[in-house]
């Protein structure tokens, strides 16, 4: 039997990771991406390798996914991760009231944590707000967004996956019986259209998932929710600094190379393809970031940017679940040959790919188990050097 064919639309985190997973399971994978790898949400992620602490109180399903994947990613792709841990710090009474539920939540999700006195915390991170009341040491980390995706893509490529960048999906090819059998594409480098056919099309376009699903007449309940981030050009801390409270605006400060990044806000938009970086959000990031690390006030802004989260719209904004969902459109809209993966977070990209690939295999009646937990990823640089 020849290899099963899969087309993945979108080369962000889920696209790259799904390509890797399916390639390992023996699929002939082609990934199409309208820009270069990670030009959308994935590239602009703040880069926090979540340990789950942020979701441990309200969204324990996500929290457990995070801690499991956090441990796995450190093992399979250490070359793009700064594994320096993180702190949750309390700055006022309201933060302190959150302490007990936070401890309970972390324990319920098996997130290892250690409470530090303010003195201990300041000894570890001298630049955090000296007025802190308590702190928790947790196993956060940071990663380089593009290079995380490239590591998955490189390994996928090694196993035969093809990446067609600057290639847009213009429409889905339908078989006339309500099934998707391929994708019409437009190669932007040559401005030539092509037809790609496959046994399964995976819609891994994240916040844009609705647009692709619509091409087949399906819909996906994804709510694109952008957030603004600001990078300052001084590495004040070695660890990810989180505010000990319910998730809110500007309550995370991350070290990255010689910068710290403050994130993020949350708002709603109409046009997905260009989202302005709102000046009042930038100001808010400075205010909130400076509460965690006062030195930020005197640092220079290096970059202001935004990314559009693909939230599954069961709630709105912060209250929406941060877990991911795979949709088999055979079940949702009686459209065969199309699967959508969306939602989730960068930290859970491998698990998202596993879930998607499981669904694809089940649909095609294949018995191929997931092996991505045990496969160490190649260097991201090999993405560029391996032949396509």
């Amino acid at each position, binding site marked *: 039997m020849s290899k099963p064919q899969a087309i993945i639309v979108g080369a962000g985190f889920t696209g790259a990771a799904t390509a890797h997973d399916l390639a390992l399971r023996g699929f002939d994978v082609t990934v199409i991406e309208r*820009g*270069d*790898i*990670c*030009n959308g949400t*994935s*590239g*602009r992620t703040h*880069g926090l390798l979540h340990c789950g602490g942020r979701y441990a109180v309200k969204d324990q399903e996500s929290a457990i996914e995070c801690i499991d994947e956090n441990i796995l990613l450190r093992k399979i792709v*250490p*070359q*793009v*991760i*700064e*594994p*320096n841990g993180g702190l949750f710090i309390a700055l006022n009474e309201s933060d302190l009231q959150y302490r007990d539920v936070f401890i309970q939540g972390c324990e319920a999700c098996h997130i290892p944590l250690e409470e530090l006195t303010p003195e201990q915390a300041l*000894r*570890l991170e*001298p630049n955090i707000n000296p007025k802190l009341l308590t702190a928790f040491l947790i196993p956060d980390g940071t990663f*380089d*967004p*593009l*290079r995380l995706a490239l590591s998955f893509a490189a390994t996928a490529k090694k196993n035969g996956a093809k990446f067609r*960048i*600057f290639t*847009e999906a213009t429409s889905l090819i339908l078989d006339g019986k309500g099934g998707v059998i391929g994708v019409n594409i437009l190669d*932007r*480098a*040559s*401005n030539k259209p092509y037809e790609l056919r496959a046994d399964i099309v995976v819609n891994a376009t994240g916040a844009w998932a609705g647009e692709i699903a619509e091409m087949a007449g399906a819909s996906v309940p994804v709510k694109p929710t952008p957030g603004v*981030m600001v*990078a300052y050009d001084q*590495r004040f801390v*070695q660890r990810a600094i989180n505010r000990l409270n319910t998730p809110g605006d500007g309550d995370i400060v991350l*070290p*990255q*190379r*010689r*910068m710290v*990044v403050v994130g993020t806000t949350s708002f709603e938009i109409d*046009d997905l*393809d*260009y989202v302005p*970086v709102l*000046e009042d959000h930038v100001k808010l990031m400075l205010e909130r970031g400076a509460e965690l690390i006062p030195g930020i006030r005197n640092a220079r802004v*290096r*970059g*202001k*940017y935004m990314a559009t989260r693909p939230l599954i719209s069961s709630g709105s904004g912060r209250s929406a679940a941060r877990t991911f969902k795979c949709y088999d459109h055979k079940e949702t809209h009686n459209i065969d040959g199309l699967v959508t993966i969306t939602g989730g977070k960068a930290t859970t990209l491998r698990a998202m790919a596993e879930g998607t690939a499981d669904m694809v295999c089940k649909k095609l009646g294949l018995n191929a188990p997931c092996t991505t937990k045990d496969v160490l990823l190649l*260097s*991201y*640089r*090999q*993405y*560029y*050097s391996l032949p396509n």
Partner: protein
Amino acid sequence: MSENWNITLKVSRQKEGEKPHFDEFKIEVDPDEYVLDAVERVWAFMDRTVCFRHACHHSTCGACGMRVNNVEKLTCITYIRDVTHDGGVLKLEPLRNFPIISDLAVDMGSLYNRLETVGVRAILPAPEAEIENPPATWDSADQQYIRLADCIECGLCISACPSAATSSEYLGPAVLAGVQANGIKGNPEMLNIVDAEDGVWRCHSAFECTAVCPSYVDPARRIMNLRTQVIKERFTRLFHKA
């Protein structure tokens, strides 16, 4: 908030099999936006066929390097205010010395391949990463921190280097700087790679790499230091032949 500017983006275009030319886009910008924001808006609202590379938008991925008014810039952190004026022109061209994929997007495979082959580290202990610009005091725990290297592998240095323009096999500033960070002591294979025709001696001290480097690497300084290391190693080997 500052007044908006009206500027003209002159974008270098080239599709497969076509002759290179410039397309002009008149666009209203906030001078405190970044060049990349303007390019992204051209793509979003004016011409979907413009191809360019970008990912992180805050100078950690190194994808968005372009030549802006003849100078290599990381466009995601280059304020429009700093490179043009109200009513002015922004000429955008792809980086030099890399094959063009389409328009502003170049194929940097050669750089990545070289970095990988000579074993330049992407992630390293914090104290080693801070050699050039160490903090005033080291915490004993700092020794355990691991962080991403300063070099974001954006290729600006290769585009700006006069030696790289004619010699396709010259290792180039980013790679030599990476070798310097690793050190060549006790690594004869690496010594032979950099002490050769396409190694440290191909540098002619134009310091252009350092002038355009957006990320604290200071490649020229590292190349100069690598030369001293090479000379030392050669003399040591001369007098301590086994």
